């Protein structure tokens, strides 16, 4: 379909969202990511039964920690879609991108820049 989505979205491949670890998400923010989102299969449609449900819980944990550290929980998000649903993938990418643009850069980055 070759639908366009924002170029600042980069994908890291996992066998199942059930493999994503809380620390993977946190590490990304620690290193300066402005937003992270996890894209899993539709709920109830996990090839490995319930991996995407575990992923959702971890995203929620990450959100709490990000809120607590002042980085902002809204910067992390879980989405579910079916593998063929390109338009929805694009919609989520745009949605996430707009949200992050609205939130601005990762505050850690701003602090670093200010210090420099």
């Amino acid at each position: 379909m070759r639908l366009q989505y924002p170029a600042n979205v980069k994908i890291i491949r996992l066998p199942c969202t059930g493999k994503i670890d809380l620390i993977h998400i946190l590490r990304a923010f620690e290193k300066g990511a402005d937003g992270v989102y996890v894209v899993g299969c539709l709920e109830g449609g996990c090839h490995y039964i319930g991996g995407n449900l575990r992923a959702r819980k971890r995203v929620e944990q990450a959100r709490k920690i990000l809120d607590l550290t002042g980085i902002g929980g809204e910067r992390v998000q879980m989405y579910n879609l079916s593998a063929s649903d390109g338009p929805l993938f694009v919609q989520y990418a745009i949605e996430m991108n707009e949200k992050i643009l609205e939130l601005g850069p990762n505050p850690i980055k701003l602090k670093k820049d200010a210090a420099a």
Partner: protein
Amino acid sequence: MIVADKKPVEEIIDYVTDCKNILVLGCNECVTVCEAGGKKEVEVLASTLRMCFLNQGTEVSIDEITLERQCDHEYLEEIRDVADRYDAIISLACGVGVQFMAEKYHSVPIYPGVNTCFLGATEKRGLWTERCQACGNCMLAITGGICPVSRCAKRILNGPCGGSSNGKCEINKDLDCAWQLIIDRLKALDRLEDYEKICSIKDWSTDRAGGPRKVVREDVQS
């Protein structure tokens, strides 16, 4: 197992707010099993702290180590060479580990990273419940395997009290009355006569009342 719960990160941040070199120290025993202080939690806490400090614009170095157990000298010795480098160590072990660390390494402040809760069991993942208060004088033999010391809110030894209604405790309606459980269990075992026996006054000297306790086993000492 000793059951601990994660300490609110805000509290931990308060402890170490002026530190520049921090060690987060996990324990691979009980606190790993109850998902409060194992290697994974060490990573998460360290990352959380790093983000906090970065967000304050302060440069802090945070290291991560997880020991097999923090309640044994030999394992604690493993950090002998590095302990001095830190101006704070956050121990994710139970209260025992934190204290043992503090006894061993005097030059560094040791802070607790978890709240140690009780001796309990994993009912299912994410649900732990208390089963023992370590009174030092076990009476489970006569109470059908259900402990009135840890499970009766009033620690009554000849229960139930008048507050037991429909099998629940008056302190909290979600709590089972331990004595109701004891009676049901003894009935099922056809041992109700044990219930009829009056329990004599318990020797509480082995409990906390006598101050910190010790177990001495000369037979195994070297």
